[in-house]
């Protein structure tokens, strides 16, 4: 039977009020009704506790939304850094999905690759790598992310740190590969690959110069649209923000973490600017490096972020403070990955202490019960 969505906002006319739904042709005879009804009656009815209906959203539809929202950044990555980006992404996603499938088969667990969460992990890992990394790196990273970080802790929703970020940090065991950034439009010249091979750090990202208190050569406009050097998916703040807006509109994420995270970085780098132009400096800080990718897509990872809105704001601020701390005082120019991983470890405590006061809870306490 077709259910037409009720146009409830329009008051019914008198005519409509008297409307009784049409019965198709003549009503069936009682015998017909009985025969038809009996043919559809089950032997046993299903008895289950309420509620009897569910939302149409599933974990899969949410993960697909995340994949969709990452597409602009991925396509931009291909445009800026060349087709090698696609190869790396396919390797990363392929190994992520493959290792989950094999692990679950071997462990005789239900195979969950269709929930698309591994695709998200693989995508995020690829977007967090420089384009010049050798092809085995996304493969190793993806297997590490899925097997060690996710499956060994119980699979989807049970991992306590973000798998893609943990894998990225694991890959820092090869710092030369991980810190060689190709210039935009370079399409990965042989020279760049050679640099990567010989472990020479060629740090020319805007962040590297910001660390020394120098405003980067890259214009603010280029940083926003993403024509700069950096990891594959982190360069275009604009397209990442577009993906974020899509996720907000689809109610996949809430604004709390991205806004509090980016806001904190903006505020702190403005107040403690290393340059005589604090506003320019702060803007360069938020639009360069992995902040947008981290704040919108990595820090909002469900399994490793708080569930309350209050907790999410606290978590976002914590990420922001740590990011600036590492960017200012750490050995690496970038601090987003590390700060999110550190805050991941605090999520249970944040949840525990941001537990909302239950409805009517205060009054009971006042009553001295």
């Amino acid at each position, binding site marked *: *039977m077709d*259910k037409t*969505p009720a146009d409830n906002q329009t008051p019914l006319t008198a005519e409509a*009020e008297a409307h009784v739904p049409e019965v198709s042709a003549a009503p069936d005879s009682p015998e017909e*009704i009985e025969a038809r009804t009996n043919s559809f009656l089950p032997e046993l*009815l299903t008895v289950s506790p*309420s509620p009897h209906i569910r939302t149409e959203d*599933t*974990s899969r539809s949410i993960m697909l939304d995340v994949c969709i929202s990452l597409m602009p950044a991925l396509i931009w990555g291909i445009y800026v850094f060349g087709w090698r980006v696609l190869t790396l992404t396919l390797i990363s996603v392929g190994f992520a999905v493959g290792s989950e499938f094999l692990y679950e088969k071997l462990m005789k667990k239900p195979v969950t690759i269709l929930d698309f969460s591994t695709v998200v992990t693989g995508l995020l890992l690829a977007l967090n790598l420089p384009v010049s990394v050798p092809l085995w790196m996304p493969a190793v990273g993806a297997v590490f992310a899925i097997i060690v970080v996710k499956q060994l802790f119980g699979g989807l929703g049970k991992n306590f740190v973000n798998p893609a970020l943990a894998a990225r940090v694991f890959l820092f065991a090869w710092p030369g590969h991980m810190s060689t950034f190709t210039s935009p439009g370079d399409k990965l010249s042989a020279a760049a690959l050679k640099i990567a091979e010989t472990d020479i750090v060629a740090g020319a990202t805007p962040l590297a110069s910001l660390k020394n208190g120098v405003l980067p050569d890259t214009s603010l406009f280029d940083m926003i649209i993403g024509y700069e050097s950096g990891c594959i998916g982190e360069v275009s703040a604009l397209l990442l923000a577009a993906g974020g807006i899509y996720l907000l509109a689809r109610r996949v994420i809430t604004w709390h973490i991205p806004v509090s995270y980016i806001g904190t970085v903006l505020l702190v780098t403005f107040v403690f600017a290393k340059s005589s132009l604090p506003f320019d400096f702060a803007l360069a800080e938020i639009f360069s490096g992995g902040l947008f990718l981290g704040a919108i897509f990595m820090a909002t990872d469900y399994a490793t972020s708080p569930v309350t809105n209050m907790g999410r704001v606290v978590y976002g601020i914590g990420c922001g403070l740590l990011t600036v701390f590492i960017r200012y005082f750490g050995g690496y120019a970038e601090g987003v990955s590390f700060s999110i991983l550190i805050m991941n470890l605090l999520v249970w405590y944040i949840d525990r202490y941001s537990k909302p006061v239950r409805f*009517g809870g205060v009054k009971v306490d006042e009553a001295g019960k």
Partner: protein
Amino acid sequence: MAFTFHGGIHIDEHKTTRRCLVETMPPPKSVSIPLSQHIGAHAVPVVKVGDTVDKGQVIGVIEKGLGCPVHASVSGKVTAITEKNAANGMKIRNIVIANDGEERLSPDIKPWGKSLADTTTEEIIEIIRAAGISGMGGATFPTYAKIQSALGKVERIIVNCAECEPYITANHRLLLENPEAVINGLKILMKAFGLRESEIAVEDNKLDAINKLENRLVGSKMIHVRVLKTKYPQGDERQLIYALTGRELPVGKLPADVGCCVFNAETCAAIFNAFAEGMPLIERIVTVDGDCIKRPRNLLVPLGTSFTDIMHCCGGLIRSLKKIVSGGPMMGVSQWDKDGVVTKGTSAILFFSEKAENRYEQPPTCIRCGRCVRACPMRLMPNYLATFASQGKLEQCEEFDVIACVECGSCSYSCPGHVPIVQYIRAAKGQINDRKRAQAAALANSQVNPEKG
């Protein structure tokens, strides 16, 4: 500005029957009337097998304790008084009456002789008790007892027409077709409480009903129509009171403790019928819907009518039936017996196929998205409650206020991982209550034993 509360969920309304006039169901061949339809004592039959009864005649009385008398909903012959398992599994005695089709009214049924102004509070309470009226929204607390316990504490009466459950349109149709009965019933309640003002609260998906009430109540300073934002579970009285007054009802307290008393719209209409015609509560409006039923409609049904009769009356089934739900899909009770009967609290009967369940083929997994936390109208953390409950960590459940859960099901509904959250919570609440009872019993024993020794 519409009144509302925090949390809650937006559900597809499925109010297919909202334009279906309430039709009187052709009297069934027989009815089976349970002697207990609500909290409180079971009624004791005052008729024997073979007796001829009239419509509206008292067939069961309460000897002591809380409860309402039970009346015959058709005229005819008592063919059996048998024990039958109710939907909740309890054995309840039923009086089965074969309908003789004469619709013979009991001579006891006569309008209350006095005018409302001359009627005392005690008399009103007695009329309501004698008519067997209990809350018709689903919780079915005996209305006379609710009034008695709330007398003197109440400053606001609220008529609940939120009808926030999907599918159900019984109250909506009642407001459109018979607003007088609701308004007059409310006036009787106001007289009983000695109040000069009251409120009728309706969700804004029933603007036609709101218009109708407002037109009827133009210039009335006594009864105010309040428009509520459409959101589940607005019809929960805690959320309703909060939306209208800003007062939060503490756990374990009654609405009267915050100065409010909430009545269902159909209960008000029943009170008016009892007062104006002397008619006890023997029939009610039931929304019949669900994807299996051929002709969804609103029916005025004698109490005790079986679901099978109703199914046939609505054109029968058109696809394979999986589940019968008595009440709304969010808090209704699924039936194991297709011959279950309509009672005072049955606002809807829904016939669902497998499709309505919306099963998800992946194993249920919490992805910690936090939707349940946002949906919970009681501001709990259902994801943690479900996790603790599934691991048997009852202390942690208690620490996270599991007892405050009202089991509205918003968490389970909104869970994209299809975790049966509220089901876990219910199980934990049951275990905690069992343990408390056991502890209380052990304590009582230990206090008794030393005296013996």
